[in-house]
């Protein structure tokens, strides 16, 4: 959280994270080139430029898989949350490596003629009716443009000005971009490969990404059927002893946003489960320094009124709770964001 915009709000964790990304990219490219030259003797006929194009392309492709797997993995296992915290940097790095691949291949294959390289790229092969000779470069170019839009709007400045919902929808374009890149690889590089290892690797990657996302989405869908909102505003949500101190119980209601009921000390408060920042699941976070702390990016809210501590100004919806002989009752009618609600007191 920050009160003013900065290009990157650096801290020790982000420096380590980015150092790992840079070291990983450099190591991958060096190993790709070295191993290809040492192990595959038939590659001796391939120029160093083509080898670098392949190394950059496969590197960006692998990085995109990692980016796409972080989200659902964090849904399944909380140990992935620190990686999620810095996912934006990995996404921007993926675009940069992909751009290097695109620029180098466009320059190498289309940069030595009379035509503008981009015109040559888009106009040389227009056989869109063929599968074997499909102009796969176009698919990669569209995916690269999507990744550029995402990298360019990854800053909190854009998130705030586009609105969190619009920003989230915009960044979900990474999913069609991934589909385009799988087809870019299948209709491009794999068309000339005889080895079965490459199609198998592409298939394993796609099955992993699709399986993790569908699995996480299915798990989330099942959560939403815990409580059926009835005509009465107050519902019983279980015993107070079922909630650990400084943690929450998430209540899923059909067709409604989830509610996070926090227990802290001898108090119980309820707020919406949706963070104002990137719509993170607040109920999966915990109380830190007296504030509900989002597990995704650390945004904080006071449990009693749903407001971020000064000087921050974010607000979230609050809900009324009461205790009936150690059972929690929740009023399903949301209070406007930032409305103070008296916490329920636990009597020992």
């Amino acid at each position, binding site marked *: 959280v920050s009160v003013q915009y900065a290009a990157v709000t650096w801290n020790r964790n982000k420096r380590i994270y980015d150092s790992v990304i840079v070291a990983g990219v450099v190591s991958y490219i060096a190993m790709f080139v070295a191993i290809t030259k040492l192990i595959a003797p038939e590659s001796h006929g391939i120029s160093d430029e083509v080898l670098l194009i392949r190394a950059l392309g496969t590197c960006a492709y692998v990085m995109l898989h990692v980016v796409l797997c972080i989200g659902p993995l964090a849904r399944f296992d909380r140990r992935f949350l620190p990686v999620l915290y810095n996912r934006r940097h990995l996404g921007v790095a993926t675009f940069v490596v992909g751009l290097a691949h695109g620029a180098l291949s466009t320059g190498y294959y289309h940069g030595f003629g009379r035509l503008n390289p981009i015109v040559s790229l888009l106009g040389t092969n227009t056989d869109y009716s063929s*599968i074997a000779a499909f102009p796969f470069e176009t698919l990669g170019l569209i995916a690269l443009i999507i990744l550029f839009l995402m990298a360019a709007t990854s800053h909190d400045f854009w998130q705030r000005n586009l609105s969190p919902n619009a920003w*989230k929808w915009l960044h*979900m374009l990474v999913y069609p971009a*991934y589909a385009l890149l799988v087809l870019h690889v299948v209709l491009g590089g794999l068309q000339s490969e005889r080895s079965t290892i490459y199609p198998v690797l592409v298939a394993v990657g796609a099955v992993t990404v*699709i399986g993790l996302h569908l699995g996480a989405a299915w798990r989330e869908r099942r959560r939403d059927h815990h409580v059926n909102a009835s005509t009465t505003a107050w519902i019983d949500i279980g015993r107070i002893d079922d909630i650990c101190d400084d943690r929450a119980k998430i209540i899923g209601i059909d067709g*409604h946003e989830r509610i996070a009921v926090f227990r802290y000390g001898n108090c119980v408060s309820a707020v919406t489960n949706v963070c104002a920042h990137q719509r993170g699941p607040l109920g999966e976070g915990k109380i830190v320094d007296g504030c509900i702390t989002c597990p995704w990016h650390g945004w904080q809210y006071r449990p009693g009124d749903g407001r971020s501590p000064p000087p921050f100004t974010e607000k979230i919806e609050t809900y009324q709770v009461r205790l009936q002989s150690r059972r929690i009752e929740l009023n399903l009618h949301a209070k406007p964001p930032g409305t103070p609600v008296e916490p329920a007191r636990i009597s020992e």
Partner: protein
Amino acid sequence: MTVAHRRGHFAAWVVLGAIISFGFVIGLLSRPRLAVQTTDITTPASHGDNP
């Protein structure tokens, strides 16, 4: 995540999963096959008989 985003995620991956699977299979099936030239290596019957 909001209800709309969760539903959007699920729908997006169902559709994209089908598109990726279909494209992957079609792409692999349409790969050009290697042309293999067969050569007749049997010895001509008249070999060595020519006076």
